[in-house]
């Protein structure tokens, strides 16, 4: 395909090429999000009533919590991000998706992998490594599916009309490589028959956790935000130079964070991580400035729209990343380590930062790829308020509770039971927030499901119509030519390239 051809391709055709893979990725992701949040609430219930699931092995806290966490990351965040990445790459390349069947197959492989992994954890076949709990069968599926999507994304990138890369390209392309390498490495070492001996296992797991929860989320989330923010705000990205600086510092410094300060390993490891964390403040601030400058002064009326989602997500990035970094400061880690603080930060990164950006992006993309309005536009707006309020209500009590618990734990005069009781009070408030987030996720799922159903019904009608026509007249079906005026309606945005 040569660049001159691409110019004749209108956005609606590009969107149409993404339709099936994106619906497959988003639909499953929304379902996993709902299930993950529900399972997370079920897990936390054990703290409200300890004997609730005493006879139900698969709902015991250790299993349900691990499965819920993995559903948020592997079930929702990654496939949803992959869908958005495919669409952004196709749009930026001004070319239809390359190898469109590959991501459809990959999406199904991925979802089967998540299903296998979740069931394995609930039945007690977790690997025992945090954030890498999925056993080998599931991990292989996930790895293969991700690689397939990455191949399609990179092929689309290769067909781009304009050779120059946009900042989103850098972030998202790096994210594709990042996952394949770190997830592959961790699984090869830890989920194999020849796992390294001793505490190296924990080190590799911390390395993976940091590379997924800090670096990968930042790459994917910001790459997506840097595409949508300028577009919706109607002005170019504030500073490509800052974005590049932020990207490079993020990948070079951020990838060294992750080893807890009191880890039972040689002292150089936590020390290096503390330095990495300190230096990671630079990209967080730089990228925050880029996003802020882009958003500032934009006259976008946003009442629960995609812009709100993405703006909230970017602010969450700055706050949650700084909180994450603070966990690796030797002085604070003494108090914050081993408390609910870490859980709160992780949930903020997953739901408040990337989750928000992805949901906003999905609401922006879905009407385009299916050429329909959202079936429940009001629920989509409600979704924003449920997500934003719910996440804050979920996470902030955990952070404060973690801090209080940590202070109590650091004082040997306070009995252990009292220190735990301090956190319990806050845990009760945070569960309310978790419920709100779950309601929000239901809005998202409902929108995607109904939209998919509508599209499938439409498809059925067309097929039936075509069959009828051909039976009646015997004439071959001719696809409609690309209608430029129809495109203009859907495409209220020419590519907002700086």
């Amino acid at each position, binding site marked *: 395909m040569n660049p001159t051809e691409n110019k004749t391709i209108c956005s609606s055709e590009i969107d149409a090429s993404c339709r099936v893979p994106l619906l497959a990725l988003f639909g499953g992701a929304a379902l996993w999000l709902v299930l993950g949040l529900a399972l997370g609430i079920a897990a936390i219930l*054990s703290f409200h009533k*300890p*004997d*609730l*699931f*005493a006879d*139900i092995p698969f709902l*015991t*806290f*250790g*299993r349900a*919590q*691990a499965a819920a966490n993995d559903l948020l990351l592997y079930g929702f965040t990654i496939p949803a991000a992959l869908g958005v990445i495919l669409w952004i790459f196709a749009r930026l390349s001004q070319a239809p998706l390359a190898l469109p069947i590959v991501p459809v197959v990959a999406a199904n492989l991925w979802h089967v992998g998540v299903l296998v992994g979740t069931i394995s954890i609930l039945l007690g*076949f*977790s*690997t025992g*490594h*945090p954030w890498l709990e999925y056993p080998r069968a599931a991990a292989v599926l996930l790895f293969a599916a991700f690689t397939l999507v990455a191949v399609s994304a990179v092929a689309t990138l*290769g067909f781009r009309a304009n050779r120059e*890369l946009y900042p989103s*390209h850098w972030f998202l*392309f*790096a994210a594709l*490589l*990042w996952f394949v*390498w*770190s997830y592959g490495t961790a699984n090869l070492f*830890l989920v194999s028959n020849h*796992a*390294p*001996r*001793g*505490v*190296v*296992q*924990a*080190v*590799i797991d911390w390395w993976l956790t940091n*590379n997924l929860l800090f670096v990968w989320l930042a790459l994917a989330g910001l790459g997506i935000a840097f595409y949508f923010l300028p577009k919706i705000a109607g002005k170019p990205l504030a500073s490509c130079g800052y974005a*590049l600086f932020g990207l490079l510092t993020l990948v*070079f410094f951020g*990838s*060294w964070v992750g*080893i*807890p300060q*009191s880890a*039972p*390993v*040689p002292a150089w*490891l936590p020390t*290096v991580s503390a330095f990495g964390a300190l230096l990671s403040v630079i990209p967080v601030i730089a990228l925050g400035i880029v996003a802020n400058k882009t958003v500032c002064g934009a006259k976008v009326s946003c009442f629960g729209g995609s812009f709100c989602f993405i703006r909230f997500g970017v602010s969450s990035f700055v706050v949650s990343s700084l909180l994450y970094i603070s966990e690796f400061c030797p002085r604070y880690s*003494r108090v914050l380590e081993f*408390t609910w603080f*870490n*859980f709160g930060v992780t949930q903020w990164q997953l739901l408040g930062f990337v989750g928000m950006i992805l949901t906003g992006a999905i609401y922006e993309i879905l009407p385009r790829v299916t050429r329909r309005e959202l079936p429940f536009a009001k629920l989509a707006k409600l979704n924003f308020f449920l997500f934003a309020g719910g996440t804050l209500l979920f996470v902030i009590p955990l952070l404060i509770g973690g801090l209080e618990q940590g202070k109590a*734990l*650091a004082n*040997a005069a306070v009995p*252990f039971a009292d220190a735990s009781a301090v*956190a319990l009070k806050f845990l009760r408030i945070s569960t309310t927030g978790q419920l709100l987030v779950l309601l929000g996720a239901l809005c998202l799922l409902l929108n995607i499901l109904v939209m998919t159903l509508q599209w499938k019904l439409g498809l059925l009608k067309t097929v039936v119509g075509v069959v009828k026509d051909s039976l009646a007249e015997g004439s071959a079906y001719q696809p409609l030519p690309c209608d430029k005026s129809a495109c203009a309606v859907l495409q209220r945005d020419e590519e907002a390239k700086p």
Partner: protein
Amino acid sequence: MKTGFSVFLAAFVALGVSWFGLVYGPLKQLGVATETKVLQSDTKWPLQRTGDATLGLQVYRSAGCAACHTEQVRQSGAANVLTVTDIGVHKAADLKDFVRSLLGTVPELMNSSNAVAANLAGWNGELPKVLYSGADDTVVSMLGDKLKAVGVKTEARVVATGTDIARGWGTRQGVAADYLYDAPVQLGSLRAGPDLSTIGVRAPDVNWQLQHLYAPRSLVKNSTMPAFRFLFTVQKKAEGKDSADALVLPKEFAPTDGYEVVPTAEAKQLAAYLVSLKNNAPLYEAPFTPITAAK
């Protein structure tokens, strides 16, 4: 960053360097570790788990115990402690005066004189008495020698300090050598429950562990631990008699009359694993004085 290749290169180098540092480096340094020896002893460390305890680690993994429990004691530092164990023929008041005079005259003791004096204030002769606890080991040896000369017996020890130690969760910090035989290594990241690295020292009774797993609140009143009843079977008593391994439970936790609670194989393995957790031997990288050495 105009070409895809430059982005690829930047990401590749960044992740590669981090991989080299945080994956390859530890593999080379720690991955080849072999068992060490307990300090001043020929005992190998870590102790090899046997039978049920090895299987119990898998039950621990499967049930996700590490979601709420850590297996890692933290330590903030170490202190040299000098304790008086026997004051011989002297009276407490005389000894106090003697030590105070030493504090004023021996140059090595000057810096720590306030700390020692504070320890002595209000002492009426009850033993053992901690005279000094701090970083300075010359104080310990100097004071110990002077007291030995007048027939007072003291003991000098190195102890780990820190909140976890003060809570009684261990005698020293967890170090890499402790986890050599664990597969998977489950350090844990949340202390919703107490640290378990020395639970085998604190609660060595397998029956206590089993009862605690079945009904945590029957033993620890305020416990927030979920009960693990699915690891037990409630069965009808054979001919009205208890089986050999039936749990002895308080009335409010026991099943109805004629029934008994019997642990499954998994429960027994898990209890065996918990009892095997005893990370309390002094090692080169985590030294402390385990037994008293009279001066």
